[in-house]
C-alpha cells in the first residue's frame, strides 16, 4: 500500500432495511440545528445493509476485519474522551482478508434493548448509532449512522393534582393549583391561582417552564437551568378573592420526557415556576416540579409490527431495573401536595422569606 494517497480506500454506506417505511424524528444537534433521524423504540430490531464501495475499482483493499456495531452511549461535554457505553453490540461482517471488489454485507441486531431516550443537552449527550469499521494497519475506515430513540409511557395510574398555599406572611398569600402532576408532551396544563391576601402592588404574573439538567455525581454535581418558556397569565393588579386561570399547551415547546438518573450519569427535570412581579420589579416565585412523559402515537396499521410490540411492552411496566419507566414510579415531590420547597423568594434577598402555610 502506498503512503501518498494512492492506496486503496473505500466508502461505506449504511442503509436500513425499512428505510422506506420507518418514521423519522427531528432531534437537535449540539449546535442547535434540527436534523431528522430514523426513529426507533426499545426492543425493535435494527437491520440493514452495509455497502462498501472501493474507490479505485480493480485495486485490492487489504483489511484486518470488517465489523458493525450498535452503540448507545452517554457523552459528557466536559469529558469528551470518556464515552460511557450502556449498549454495545458487535457483529463481524468479514474476517481479516481483502476485498477485490465492492461488496454489500447484511446485518441484523435482533430486538435491541434501547433503555433510554436520545438526548442532546447543554452539558451531556445521549445518542445511539450504528458504526461500521474496516480495521486496517495504519488507519481504519469508519462510518456512523445516528438514530433517535424515544421512550414511551402510558397514562400513569396515579396522577393527582398539585394544590398548595404559599406566600409571605401578612403580605401575599396565594393558593395555586395545577390539574395534574404528570403531563405528557402534548398535554395541557390547566390550573388556577387564587389570591387570599394581596398587600403588595402586583403588576403581572407569569408561568415559566424550566429545564434543569444535572450532570455529575457526589461532590461535583452541576445543575444547568434553562428557561424554556415564559407565559404571561395575568396583567394587572389582583385583589383578594380573585382567581386567575391557567391554560398552557405544552405541544408548542421543545420538551423531552423527565429523565431521572440516566445510567447514574445525568438527569433532566422540569419545573413550573410561578412568578409574580410587583410595581418595583421585585419578583416573587414558587417552583414546582412536574413529571413529563412521552405518549405513544396512535398505532396505525402501517406501523411496523416491531413497534407495536415495543409499545405494548410499556403497559404498566414496573420493572425495577428499568429506571426510566415513568408510568408506575412514584416520584418524590408531586403526589400528595406535601411541599418540597416552600419558599417564596425575591431574588433581591439573600435569604428566603419564610412562607405562611396552612
Amino acid at each position, binding site marked *: 500500500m502506498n503512503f501518498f494517497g494512492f492506496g486503496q480506500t473505500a466508502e461505506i454506506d449504511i442503509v436500513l432495511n425499512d428505510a422506506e417505511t420507518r418514521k423519522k424524528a427531528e432531534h437537535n444537534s449540539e449546535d442547535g440545528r434540527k436534523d431528522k433521524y430514523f426513529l426507533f423504540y426499545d426492543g425493535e430490531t435494527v437491520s440493514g445493509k452495509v455497502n462498501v464501495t472501493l474507490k479505485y475499482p480493480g485495486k485490492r483493499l487489504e483489511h484486518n476485519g470488517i465489523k458493525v456495531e450498535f452503540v448507545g452511549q452517554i457523552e459528557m461535554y466536559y469529558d469528551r474522551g470518556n464515552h460511557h457505553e450502556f449498549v454495545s453490540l458487535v457483529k463481524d461482517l468479514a474476517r481479516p482478508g481483502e476485498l477485490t471488489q465492492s461488496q454489500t454485507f447484511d446485518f441484523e441486531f435482533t430486538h435491541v434493548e434501547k433503555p433510554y431516550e436520545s438526548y442532546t443537552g447543554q452539558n451531556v449527550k445521549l445518542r445511539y448509532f450504528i458504526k461500521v469499521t474496516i480495521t486496517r494497519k495504519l488507519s481504519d475506515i469508519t462510518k456512523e449512522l445516528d438514530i433517535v430513540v424515544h421512550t414511551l409511557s402510558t397514562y400513569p395510574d396515579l396522577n393527582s393534582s398539585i394544590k398548595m398555599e404559599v406566600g409571605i406572611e401578612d403580605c401575599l398569600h396565594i393558593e395555586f393549583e395545577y390539574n395534574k402532576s404528570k403531563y405528557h408532551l402534548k398535554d395541557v396544563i390547566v390550573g388556577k391561582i387564587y389570591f387570599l391576601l394581596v398587600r*403588595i402592588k402586583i403588576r403581572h404574573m407569569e408561568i415559566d417552564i424550566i429545564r434543569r439538567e444535572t450532570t455529575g455525581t457526589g461532590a461535583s454535581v452541576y445543575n444547568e437551568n434553562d428557561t424554556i418558556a415564559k407565559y404571561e397569565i395575568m396583567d394587572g*393588579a389582583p385583589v383578594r378573592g*380573585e382567581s386567575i386561570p391557567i391554560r398552557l399547551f405544552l405541544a408548542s415547546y421543545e420538551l423531552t420526557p423527565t429523565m431521572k438518573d440516566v445510567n447514574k450519569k445525568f438527569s433532566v427535570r422540569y419545573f413550573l415556576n410561578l412568578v409574580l412581579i410587583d410595581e418595583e420589579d421585585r419578583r416573587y416565585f414558587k417552583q414546582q416540579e412536574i413529571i413529563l412523559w412521552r405518549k405513544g402515537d*396512535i398505532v396505525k396499521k402501517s406501523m411496523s409490527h416491531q413497534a407495536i410490540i415495543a409499545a405494548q411492552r410499556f403497559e404498566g411496566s414496573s420493572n425495577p431495573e428499568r429506571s426510566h419507566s415513568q408510568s408506575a414510579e412514584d416520584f418524590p415531590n408531586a403526589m400528595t401536595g406535601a411541599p418540597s420547597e416552600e419558599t417564596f423568594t425575591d431574588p433581591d434577598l439573600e435569604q428566603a*422569606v419564610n412562607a405562611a402555610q396552612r
Partner: protein
Amino acid sequence: MADAIADTRRLYTKPQNLNDAYGPPSNFLEIDVSNPETVGVGRGRYTTYEVRLKTNLPIFKLKESSVRRRYSDFEWLRAELERESKVVVPPLPGKALFRQLPFRGDDGIFDDSFIEERRQGLEQFLNKVAGHPLAQNERCLHMFLQDEFVDKNYTPSKIRQA
C-alpha cells in the same frame, strides 16, 4: 390508544365576594416627598423635605403621617436598612459634593433645579423601599416615615405584627 381531546375546561373557583371585588384594595400605599424648605442661615443652612404617607397596610401604625426629613436622614435610613435587613437597597440621588464647594455660578445645593432633581430621587427611593415586604419589618423604616424625630441612637429591631 385513542387520542382523546384534552379537557381544558377551567378549574372550579369560588365566586368572589363583592366587597373584595369592589372595595378598596388592601395594598394602598402612597408616599410623597414634597415642599422643600431651606432652614437656617449662612453655612449652617440645609434643606428639609416633607415626607407624607397614606396607607391602609396594617403594618404601619398610622394610616396617615407627615414628617420633615433632610438628606442626611435618608442616608441614615439607607445605611440602617443595608446593615439590618437582607434587602438590596436602591441608591439615593447623589451627594453633590461639588455643589458644596465655594465660588460657584449658581446656588450650589440650594439651587431650585438641583433640589427638584433630588426631591424626585428621594421620592423614588422611598417608594421602592417602603413597598418591600422585608424592609417593612424594620423599625428604622417606621421611625423614619412616621415618628416626628429620627433617633439615631435607637435600638435596631424588627416589627412583628400582632
